[in-house]
């Protein structure tokens, strides 16, 4: 049993390293090739995890080869668009100017109920409001509404908006983020001073964010300060 535990931990570390190598996109929207690789990795890792008879290296080599090929092919497809099309396919326009392209829907085996479901998810009631809808290569539907059906923006109504820039977490549970300090050119003493100006101490701060100019945006103290 101990052997299985150790083998599982080793394979877990290998899979984490593999997923990190594949990048952030892997965690969210999967392209067909990425979906295949993720499913195979799960399967390949499970076999040596469950059976002591199979050397661990069989799983490790398979995972390394799968991930390397996936990363190499996706990197190559950046340079060679035809390869990207070959691996992931092309997006398809299924609705244009409120009209369903039935032939394209049939070609993609995308049913009317699938379309209705996606439109409901995007809070669209009327097909006539859709300027165009694109079935992306990862299977998601991107819906673009006609201008008369989109909500008014601040620009439309001429209202001024303050741009906060990138909001960063400066203090988390009493710890000052060294990375954020570096990005904003602040020292820990500066942060202490800024927090004290708000009537708190760094140790008793639970959550503190700063805007792009380095000004404190929100600060929340701990419920049970030390």
């Amino acid at each position, binding site marked *: 049993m101990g052997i299985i535990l150790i083998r599982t931990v080793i394979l877990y570390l290998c899979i984490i390293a593999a997923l990190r*190598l594949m*990048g952030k996109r892997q965690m969210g929207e999967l392209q067909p090739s990425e979906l295949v690789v993720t499913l195979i990795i799960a399967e390949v890792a499970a076999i040596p995890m469950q059976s*002591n*008879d*199979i*050397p*661990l*290296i069989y799983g490790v*080599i398979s995972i*390394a*080869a799968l*991930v*390397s*090929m*996936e*990363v*190499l092919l996706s*990197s*190559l497809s950046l340079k060679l668009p035809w390869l990207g099309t070959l691996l992931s396919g092309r997006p398809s326009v299924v609705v244009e100017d409120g009209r369903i392209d039935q032939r394209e829907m049939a070609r993609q085996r995308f049913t009317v109920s699938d379309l209705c479901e996606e439109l409901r998810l995007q809070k669209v009631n009327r097909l006539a409001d859709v300027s165009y809808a694109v079935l992306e290569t990862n299977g998601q539907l991107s819906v673009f509404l006609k201008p008369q059906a989109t909500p008014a923006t601040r620009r439309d109504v001429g209202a001024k908006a303050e741009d906060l820039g990138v909001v960063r977490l400066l203090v988390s549970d009493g710890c000052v983020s060294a990375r954020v300090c570096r990005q904003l050119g602040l020292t820990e003493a500066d942060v202490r001073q800024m927090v004290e100006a708000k009537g708190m101490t760094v140790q008793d701060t639970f959550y503190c964010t700063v805007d792009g100019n380095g000004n404190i945006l929100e600060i929340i103290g701990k419920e049970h300060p030390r």
Partner: protein
Amino acid sequence: MRRWLIALLALLLTALLCIANERICTRLTDRLTETVQQARQMAEQGDPAAALSEIGQLRRQLDDALFYLSVSTSHTEVDALFSSAIRCRSCLDQGDRIQFLIECDQLLELLEGLAESERMNWENIL
């Protein structure tokens, strides 16, 4: 470091590992096969003491290669190799020459199967 470079290095490293494994496996099985054949030859020539010495040598070779075999080969195959070597020794201890020759043949078949399974050829790939 760029992601694709790490992937390329990982792929190359994996390929090198596989090539090295094939060579090590071939060398090891050749050595073990030679020892078993010599033991078999000695037994055929009516020299059980020399055959016993060769089987002892085989056991030491297997013990030395145990880590490599466990890492690279199915553990069932490794167990089968060790069991076969033990049976060969038992036959010699009991003076059963015919059974010893049969066991040697089985051991040679196991070794051939092990070498064959690691060989990178189309038969194995397909």
